[in-house]
């Protein structure tokens, strides 16, 4: 396991100028990836200030307009805002070294691509000639964001709370052989591993950019390593139609539990496995 990959800038260091970071570094999802020198993962567990003030601080004009007009319950509005904060922090840290300064949050705009995958945009992308890739997840008031500097890397992250969950979703979410995998897990760990498997499907769907639109069973869990938390997935039916070059490939997703949350993360190098 690698140690901390990208430290937040020291308050006294030369790169410390610029807007404050709102989220905290969260390395748990990325420490298992060997080539993770250009990855950042950030986490935010609560609103750091009143939501409207936070929106004024971090959102671009268009983002703020979208958020103000969002017809959604407070939980959704707050988590959307937290996710933006975490993602902008992650992108800001990734770009700090190549740009030589930390970008203001509002200059990093998070916009969905035509399939709904978030991407970071801004005038800086022309200067740098690159556009980091990002993935955002939120659950029960916590938001996390994973970002990679190189566009060829596809990243996906998912997070679920262990509280208030029933087991009967397994009948829809998992195929019979995936449920057989769960049956081999001790009873007291079953709920956690079912959530790990669910998060792994979600994270891989996000990394590939189409979510679970091909169907829940199109992301198939072929194996699980209890000691490392690694799950091995392959694509089936609708997902193979979307990504035919991944036929026969095993895709690895890292999962773990941290207090009441289970998370999954995947970093996939485009072309490497094809």
């Amino acid at each position, binding site marked *: 396991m690698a140690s901390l990959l990208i430290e937040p800038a020291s308050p006294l260091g030369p790169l410390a100028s610029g807007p404050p970071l709102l989220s905290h570094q969260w390395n748990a999802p990325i420490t298992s990836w060997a080539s993770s020198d250009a990855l950042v993962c950030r986490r935010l567990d609560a609103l750091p200030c009143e939501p409207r003030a936070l929106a004024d601080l971090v959102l671009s004009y268009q983002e703020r307009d979208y958020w103000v007009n969002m017809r959604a*319950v407070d939980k959704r509005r707050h988590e959307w805002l937290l996710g933006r904060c975490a993602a902008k922090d992650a992108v800001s840290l990734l770009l700090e070294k190549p740009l030589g300064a930390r970008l203001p949050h509002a200059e990093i705009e998070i916009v969905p691509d035509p*399939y*709904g995958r978030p991407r970071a945009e801004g005038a800086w992308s022309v200067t740098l000639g690159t556009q980091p890739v990002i993935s955002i997840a939120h659950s029960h008031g916590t938001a996390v964001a994973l970002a990679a500097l190189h566009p060829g890397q596809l990243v996906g992250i998912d997070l679920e709370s262990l509280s208030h969950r029933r087991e*009967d979703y397994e009948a*829809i979410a998992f195929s019979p052989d995936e449920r057989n995998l769960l049956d081999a897990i001790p009873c007291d760990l079953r709920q956690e591993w079912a959530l790990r498997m669910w998060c792994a499907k979600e994270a891989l769907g996000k990394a590939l950019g189409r979510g679970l639109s091909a169907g829940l*069973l199109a992301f198939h869990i072929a194996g699980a390593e209890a000691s490392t938390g690694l799950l091995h997935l392959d694509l089936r*039916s609708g997902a193979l139609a979307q990504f035919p070059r991944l036929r026969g490939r095993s895709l690895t997703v890292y999962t773990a539990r941290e207090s009441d949350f289970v998370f999954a993360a995947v970093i996939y190098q485009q072309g490497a496995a094809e």
Partner: protein
Amino acid sequence: MPHMTESEVFDKFAQIVARSLRIDVAQVKPEVHLNDLGAESLDLIEISMETESQFHIFLPDKSILETAVEAFGSDILEKDGYLTDEGKRLMLCRMPDADAETFQGKVAVKDLQSYFLKIGTWVRMIQGLARYTPSECRACGGSMLASMGFRMKCVQCGEEITLRSGEELNREWVREYYDKEYHPHAGAAPVPVTVVQ
């Protein structure tokens, strides 16, 4: 099951949503999206399961567009994340009562995903699927009640039937659309319709 009006389906579905998300039922409106009510991915699964149980229907596990794209092949209905004109034709044919503006101009796949998360879209889908759930036994005319899994059983003669899945119905609709609408319109079809297994 007995024919239910759109309003009756909405009332029942709104209760399911409100209970699952622990919100006031008054917040559930036809134009609202499930994710804007705070639904997370597993909430959507719970809502799906409760809907299947209460309406005695078998929901598809993916959208009609995904099923059609698998059948037609790539780039015919959707290209680079946007519906093609053929894709818009198919969606308009499938959802004649949908808001016409949903399929006007450039339509991104994400816009459709959002459309499929609207309460009103769910209500129409439930109503459509419920038409395939019999209220009377074909053999004796007795009442049908939900049995184990996706099965219905006649209380009078014991005849059992398996409900048709939304996925199966979607595939049938896509095949019929291809034969009757797309093929005559497009002439020599570039890709034969096959559903990836």
